């Protein structure tokens, strides 16, 4: 039957036609009657005191409606930091809507011009005179903690925001002392710029009649934006604001957060009595939107001579930028330190993370958020041990894997009570080996090496954490996230048999409108075209936490699924009433309810929806209408895993590393739509490879972003890659009834280490064991030819 095939079917994304043909409406398409436009003046200095701002020339430009500085908004609270990780004291410094007298990174907003059009606003911006008193600058997170480093915030001695740890330090030290071999390595996980195709923006309208605001923002989490902006920043009732995310053109995490511009637009709309819109330029996006990663890590890994890993000790300096973004502290701690066991049984683990302020842009979650950094540390460490012991990198992985029968697996307590839900790590590895023809490649490599060619293979066997939700674990009673993280899903079936699904999750490219419709059509037994999915508007959707951390399937879809079950049950009871049968005898299957053994006399779900709506013949006590909401709070997170394998060749004349083959075997649990999962894997792998080889945000010692545009910052292009060979194993998650795990981030999590491991394998004959990313041609050429950095 067609319906049963919907779960797991390769259905083309229903949202794509409007996205591809340019019919979709993004924030920049929004035009409101009487709307004026804002442009923001951003600090040119990375660290300075602002001694004077003179806006008078700007204010006189014809067409300018108003010019404001931070002093005009002293009644607006600083933005909240919504995730202060438990177990560590946080010295919190968050941005204000406009900074008043102190700036801690280039790009911090210090004044705003509102004008009849954006051109005029930009003209006037150039006429604002600012007097700065430059202050000394700290850029590097490790250096910033040293004595004598410039002090950025009064409340954060040594520029430390928080000093956090997990695991057993003493036991890990002890295990390192008794290990046969100990490898020590400094690893830099460089800063990345997320680069969604659509930059950020916001438009706000204030209605003086009702004292209500409407905010359109490029948001991954409209309900959370409303909550934080009203209750925390503006200090108004949450009910006085509606937040709408129009179509959102990608985010990669960078649109989770509340940024200064959003409450600023609300405040301006009220003050000016006119709707105000601000749309970020790409240059602004580079300096004012959050960045990702930026870790300096010291890793010590101990092992027995046979390759058994006995201890992992990690110290990481996490650069958080000049001020804290919304959930910045949680990323390098809960989502990083707690995942450092990787796919392995490591008996002793200790991790300390120092979160550091520097005079750079804010850092927060970026696709993968903590898990790519953890995977990189673990997967590089495993390879370094293998190299030291002259072991095959595949064998050492096999030897240390959490075995199939060990699930649910507790990685020696560092997950703070959670357990890896399910897994078969060796199966995914074997599949990857087979696909890439490991034996064949090693023979080819031997030949190539004889000719002086530098070919290598690299693996990354990762485990990650998705469906981050269990509120008791993540929330205030657990990891310190400032709320719950359950998700909502409402399903309504109208009189006409059409189905409306609303979700508190939010699609900014993930294809919710397809996946959720597929799931609902599958469950209710209705044609998929009869299902529409609505999200991204606080009016009309139940409260929900939004989309990030690959949680839309593992949490959001499960909530929707819950509501379909409630409707099915109600439909079944209604059918029993109409068929004059006993409820216990009626079954619901494939969109029809009938008495067991008599499927020919069935009531279709559409007939039942009609009956429930007209409601003149309902069983006693039954409410009219099919309308069910579920708030799903899972008992555990989900733990996708897999093995990625990559073959590279390095051109010794130019240092260019070329990816010859890339194989991704992922296990994301059960798959609702393979096409969408493949798309997610492809995109993530591209971003992960790009981190390994090309991308990297670079600040100079003055805190100026040298990679300030796409002319310098290498966003990868399709032509850089071979065809990605994707495959899967399917180990259902026992955590949720759908058996799904989450598939949005596996690519960025796995790919980076696979590529770096491959390049290091290629350079192995030269005795090179490690180079930091990005492995640019110059860096590789210098290493190959024994020059400067990296030569070892």
């Amino acid at each position, binding site marked *: 039957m067609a319906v049963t095939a919907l779960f797991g079917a390769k259905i083309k994304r229903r949202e794509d036609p409007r996205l591809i043909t340019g019919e979709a409406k993004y924030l920049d398409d929004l035009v409101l009657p009487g709307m004026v436009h804002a442009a923001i003046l951003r600090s040119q200095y990375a660290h300075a005191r602002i001694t004077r701002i003179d806006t008078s020339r700007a204010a006189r430009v014809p067409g300018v409606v108003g010019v404001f500085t931070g002093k005009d908004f002293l009644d607006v609270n600083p933005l909240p930091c919504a995730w202060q990780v438990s177990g560590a004291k946080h010295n919190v410094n968050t941005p204000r809507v406009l900074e008043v007298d102190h700036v801690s990174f280039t790009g911090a907003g210090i004044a705003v011009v509102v004008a009849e059009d954006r051109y005029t606003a930009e003209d006037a911006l150039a006429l604002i005179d600012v007097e700065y008193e430059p202050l000394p600058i700290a850029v590097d997170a490790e250096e910033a903690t040293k004595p004598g480093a410039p002090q950025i915030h009064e409340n954060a001695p040594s520029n430390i925001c928080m000093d956090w740890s997990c695991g057993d330090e003493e036991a890990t030290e002890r295990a390192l002392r008794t290990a046969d071999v100990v490898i020590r390595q400094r690893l830099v996980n460089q800063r990345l710029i997320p680069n969604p195709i659509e930059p950020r923006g916001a438009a706000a309208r204030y209605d003086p009649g009702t004292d209500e605001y409407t905010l359109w923002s490029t948001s991954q989490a409209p309900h959370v934006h409303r909550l934080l902006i009203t209750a925390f920043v503006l200090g108004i009732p949450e009910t006085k604001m509606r937040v709408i995310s129009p179509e959102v053109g990608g985010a990669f995490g960078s649109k989770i957060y509340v940024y200064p511009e959003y409450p600023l637009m609300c405040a301006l709309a009220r003050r000016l009595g006119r709707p105000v819109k601000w749309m970020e*330029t790409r*240059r602004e996006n580079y300096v004012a939107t959050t960045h990702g990663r930026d870790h300096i890590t010291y890793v010590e890994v101990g092992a027995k001579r046979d390759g058994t890993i006995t201890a992992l000790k990690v110290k990481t300096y996490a650069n958080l930028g000049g001020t804290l973004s919304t959930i910045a502290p949680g990323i390098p701690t809960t989502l990083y330190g707690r995942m450092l066991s990787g796919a392995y049984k490591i008996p002793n683990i200790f991790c300390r993370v120092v979160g550091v302020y520097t005079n750079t842009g804010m850092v927060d979650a970026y696709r993968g958020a903590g898990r790519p950094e953890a995977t990189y540390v673990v997967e590089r460490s495993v390879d370094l041990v293998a190299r030291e012991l002259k072991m095959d990198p595949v064998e050492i992985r096999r030897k240390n894997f959490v075995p199939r029968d060990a699930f649910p697996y507790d990685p020696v307590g560092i997950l703070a009570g959670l357990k890896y839900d399910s897994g078969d790590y060796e199966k995914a590895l074997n599949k990857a080996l087979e696909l890439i023809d490991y034996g064949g490649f090693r023979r080819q490599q031997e030949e190539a090496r004889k000719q002086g060619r530098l070919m290598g293979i690299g693996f990354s066997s990762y485990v990650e954490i998705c469906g981050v939700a269990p509120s008791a674990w993540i929330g205030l009673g657990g990891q310190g996230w400032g709320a719950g993280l359950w998700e909502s899903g409402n399903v309504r079936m109208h009189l006409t048999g059409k189905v409306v699904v609303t979700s508190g999750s939010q699609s900014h490219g993930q294809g919710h409108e397809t996946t959720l419709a597929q799931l609902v059509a599958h469950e209710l037994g209705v044609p998929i075209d009869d299902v529409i999915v609505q999200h991204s508007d606080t009016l009309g959707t139940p409260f929900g936490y939004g989309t990030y951390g690959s949680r839309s399937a593992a949490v959001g879809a499960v909530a929707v699924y819950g509501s379909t079950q409630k409707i099915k049950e109600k439909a079944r009871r209604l059918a029993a009433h109409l068929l004059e049968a006993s409820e216990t005898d009626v079954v619901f299957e494939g969109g029809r309810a009938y008495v067991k053994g008599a499927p020919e006399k069935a009531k279709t779900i559409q007939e039942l929806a009609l009956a429930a709506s007209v409601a003149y013949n309902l069983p006693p006590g039954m409410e009219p209408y099919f309308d069910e909401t579920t708030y799903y709070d899972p008992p555990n997170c989900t733990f996708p895993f897999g093995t990625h394998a990559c073959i590279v060749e390095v051109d010794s004349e130019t240092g*260019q590393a070329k990816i010859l083959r890339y194989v991704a075997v992922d296990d994301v649990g059960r798959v609702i739509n393979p096409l969408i999962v493949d798309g997610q894997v492809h995109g993530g792998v591209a971003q992960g490879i790009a981190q390994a080889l090309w991308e990297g945000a670079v600040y100079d010692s003055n805190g100026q972003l*040298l990679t300030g545009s796409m002319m310098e910052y*290498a966003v990868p292009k399709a032509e*850089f890659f071979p065809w990605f060979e994707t495959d899967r194993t399917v180990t259902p998650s026992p955590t949720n009834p759908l058996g799904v795990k989450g598939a949005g981030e596996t690519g960025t999590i796995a790919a980076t280490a696979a590529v770096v491991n491959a390049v290091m394998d290629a350079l192995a004959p030269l005795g090179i064991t490690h180079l930091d990313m990005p492995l640019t041609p*110059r860096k590789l050429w*210098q290493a190959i030819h024994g020059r400067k950095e990296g030569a070892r």
Partner: protein
Amino acid sequence: MIPAAFDYAVPATVEEALKLLRKNPEAKVMAGGQSLLSLMKLRLATPPLIVDLRRIRDLSYIREDGSRVLIGAMTTHAEIERSPIIRRRFPVLAQAAEAIGDLQVRNMGTIGGSLAHADPAADYPAAFLAMEGAVQVQGPRKARTILAEDFFTGLYTTALNSGEIITEIQIPIPPAVTGSAYRKMKHPASGFAVVGAAAVLRVGPDGREQRLRLAFTGAAAHAIRATAVEMALRGKAITEQAIAEAMQHATDGVEMLEDLFADREYRAQLVRVYGKRAVMAALQ
């Protein structure tokens, strides 16, 4: 991303365009806009008047006139890339055109605009030098021809005077070209040449008598001819070994560019490698 205000004129003839330029010394001509508009959006250029050349007929053509190939200044990169004349006579130029940006850029950008803009990392300039071309220029009062070797004078600067418009690119057809090629390392971010090498090679029947023209882009403030390499190879049999040796002179006396992606030493290596690769490809 949001340009300053400007006026916009669309003349129908070169004469009209020249007149507009004479009246507005600060005005800028616009060809494909693929370099100019970015500068304006960043407000690095704020011309009060844009004189758009795109409606001027007869500035877009590729034809042979016996001893030369003539290319109208408004000919797009895409047209050059696909032209059978260029592909047959000057693969080096077709390959340079092909290596520029992406399809949209190649459909809009023009050879006149690219040469006038004189980006140190642009692709055409190397080919232009190696082919020993010239530009035909129309000024307010007179027309003149500028040889390739005299054209580039510095970073984004050329021998063009203000108020002058390039109308045509002229390339002499040498008696017997054996081969020509353009090889480039693309900057992973911008796609421009980190280093690009253009080689035009003529080899006599005995394999000895040969004449090489080799030029680089991306290496210095403007594209340069590698005369030292050309000299070093003079009269020698062209072998990979000989080329590699000659390339040791490729950066003699050159003030090398340096940036985040490539320091001087590495850039010099790229000059040697891509120079060798271009000559080898030209040999094929």
